[in-house]
């Protein structure tokens, strides 16, 4: 029976990623994590993650970027901020998760066809085009991209929503949507990582 050796060498570390990560919050704060585990303990999603935020902190500080960006950890975060409020070193864990999400998407390291990534892309696509998001089309887009079969179970909810008039089939949009689009494009070109706060 073949075994998978759990050993890493220094060559597996990505110092650039480690530096980028520890600079995220500024003032070496991320280095002050004492690994108390209260972030993972308070996270409502932790038991579903590959590993919780505490382990992620350690892996990221050491520069194991593939583990960090390839895990489902960052995608399961719902930004409930329980970790941020509990952290004894006052590390804004949720904002760190956002930064990792962005990096994973930008660098193409997000898991392929991950529904959370698809949702984000669908969401931003709609808002970019029209200035508002219409739920029906968001879900439809998600279903199409992530696999319609997954969403067969949601049929009941879908029907309930239509039945009670809580679903709008008209694309919601704003009047000055071109202005908004120009604004979004203008700041995208601004570039540079703005420090996480």
């Amino acid at each position, binding site marked *: 029976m073949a075994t998978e050796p759990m050993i890493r060498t220094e060559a597996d570390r990505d110092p650039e990623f480690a530096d980028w990560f520890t600079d995220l919050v500024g003032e070496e704060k991320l280095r002050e994590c004492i690994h*108390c*585990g209260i972030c*993972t*303990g*308070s996270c409502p999603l932790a038991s579903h993650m590959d590993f919780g935020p505490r382990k992620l902190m350690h892996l990221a500080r050491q520069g194991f970027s593939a583990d960090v960006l390839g895990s489902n950890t960052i995608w399961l975060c719902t930004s409930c901020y329980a970790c941020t409020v509990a952290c*004894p070193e006052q590390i804004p864990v949720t904002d760190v998760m956002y930064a990792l999400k962005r990096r994973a998407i930008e660098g193409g390291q997000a898991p392929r066809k991950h529904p959370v990534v698809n949702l984000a892309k669908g969401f931003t696509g709609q808002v970019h085009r029209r200035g508002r998001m219409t739920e029906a089309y968001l879900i439809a887009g998600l279903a199409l991209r992530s696999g319609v079969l997954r969403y067969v179970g949601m049929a009941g909810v879908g029907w309930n929503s239509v039945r009670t008039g809580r679903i709008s089939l008209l694309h919601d949009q704003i009047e000055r949507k071109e202005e908004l689009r120009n604004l979004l494009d203008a700041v995208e070109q601004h570039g540079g990582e703005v420090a996480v706060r």
Partner: protein
Amino acid sequence: MPEPAARTSGNGNGTPRIGVYVCHCGTNIASTIDVAAAQRAAESLPGVVLSREYKYMCSDPGQEMIKDDIRDHGLERVVVASCSPCLHEETFRTAIADGGINPYFFQMVNIREHDSWVHKDMAAATAKANDLIRAAVRRVRFHQPLEARRVPIDPKVLVLGGGIAGIHAALTLANAGKQVYLVEREPSIGGHMAMFDKTFPTLDCAACILTPKMTQVRNHPNITIWTMSDVVEVDGFVGNYKVKVKHRPRYILEEACVGCLECIDACVFRRGKTPDEFNLGLSKRKPIYIPFPQAVPQVVLIDPDTCIEFRTGKCKKTCIEVCADRNAIDFTQTETFDEVEVGSIVVATGFKAFDAGRLPQYGYGRYDGVYTALEVERLVNASGPTEGKIVLRDGREPERIGIIHCIGSRDKNTNVYCSRVCCMYSLKLAHLLQEKTNAEIYEFYIDMRTAGKGFEEFMLRVKSEGVHMIRGKVSDVYPEAGGTGRVVLQAEDSLAGMVRKIPVDMVVLATGLEPQPDAEDVRRIFNITCAGGGFFMERHPKLAPVSTFTDGVFLAGACQAPKDIPDTVAQAGAAAAEALALIDHGYIELEPNTAYVVAEECSGCKTCLGLCPFSAITRVDGKAQINPVLCKGCGTCVAACPSGAIKQNLFEDEEIYEEIMGVLAHV
């Protein structure tokens, strides 16, 4: 008023012969300042007959060099350019005094803290050193021969705080033959240690090892115990403190009461109604009570807020009936004051446990099964509210207990520091709880800090008893669904790499140690400082942990920083030893940098009187007069006097002007 400097042989033109020494201080100064250049520059200054550079002026050879030069070259003034006067001014003054000239014919130049340690450019730093040395050389010509004043030290000592720190310090001092006033705020001495059941790592019974010391204190002829007392005012200075102590009324005559406690039984209250402070509210007491059975003094007290006689004036006063032969109860007692003179003070006011109510997410005060560690100490204690049985507020016996570390410690949201004792006491409580209940015990920790003597072995013992160790901090506590009365603890078991959810009957919050809430007020009374989490500040964290920046005031115990009993006792002994050193030396020498009034020029305007922070100035025969023993040389009156009638030794006008001119000479 001191006379002008006697002219000596001088340089032939009447100015004194000056020697200048520039120190390398290893590389501390020499790496940034061209010491050789500074030495050369000093050579040509007016009045300088020799200038030298040396690696370590403060060393013996360095000092010998100065003494030899005084003898061989007839030096009359010495300037040393090196480190801060805080470190070595005394050293060099003593050296030149040994060499035969007045120690105050000396000026120290700080070219380390003020120059080499704060600048990087060598040329600029050297130029600055030259300016500073020039200034000192010009100044020192005008120094006068002064004499340090000697003030005797009063051998009596005041110890503030009657916990184990205060008790040990008091006994050490009293055994050395010194008279001690032990001032304690609570009705009994004993402090927090009296509340504990067993102490780590030996599991000694706290009362068994404490009460003999308390009895020794009570019986010691050299110790005066004042309980229910506070220090309200401190005047004076080292060796000569005047302390005002306030005594709050017990409404009992201490000398008459024999501690039979019959008055408590006889009280019209059949049962206690007031939350008992010593049992942290876990039981109730009557208005007349004694904090705990082994209290010293063994005297009851009456709480005027709950006693019917105080509230309505219409009580049967069955307590007085039962005390008929002793007549120890006195409802008319009032606050009294005492003023004592002592030479030194030991502050041993202890700590306050972190208030777990500040972290509502842990359910303290909301869920019945959540306790603080100190409350659990009382529960396990045989003389506690449940006579040592582990019974929860709702009457159940716990089958599962969770102990959560670092509540109010290691947390920027409350206290950043580690409270040092909680890991050990949590292990101890785990051991005691398991002994009494056979419950499953879970310790939720971040790190296990077991560094003291016998501590690691203690942890191994507790581990071997089957306590579950979970490395992960619990974030919150919520009730289990279904009305079981249990609460759920959820934490990451980081060593296992999984999240665990454990319902428990009882939660013990390992609350941290904080300074007493009135630490800021107390520090002002004694003129000491609070720092590092609000604890009293020691003079130096490594080399002077029991003294403060106020001479004669010492610190002992948890009021200086969180610590356990072994360290507290060690520190209390150290504080007593330092006080004894002061007392046995017999006197203290006061720096003669005091202000003085030139009577002919004083107009009696009284501007200076109210300005003196040390109350050293009085008005005598229409003129201001300064008490040189109280004067600390702060210079406020000197600057304020509209007539310029007040001058200061070592800071005369000419001295200051010369120094300014010296610094600006290159401009």
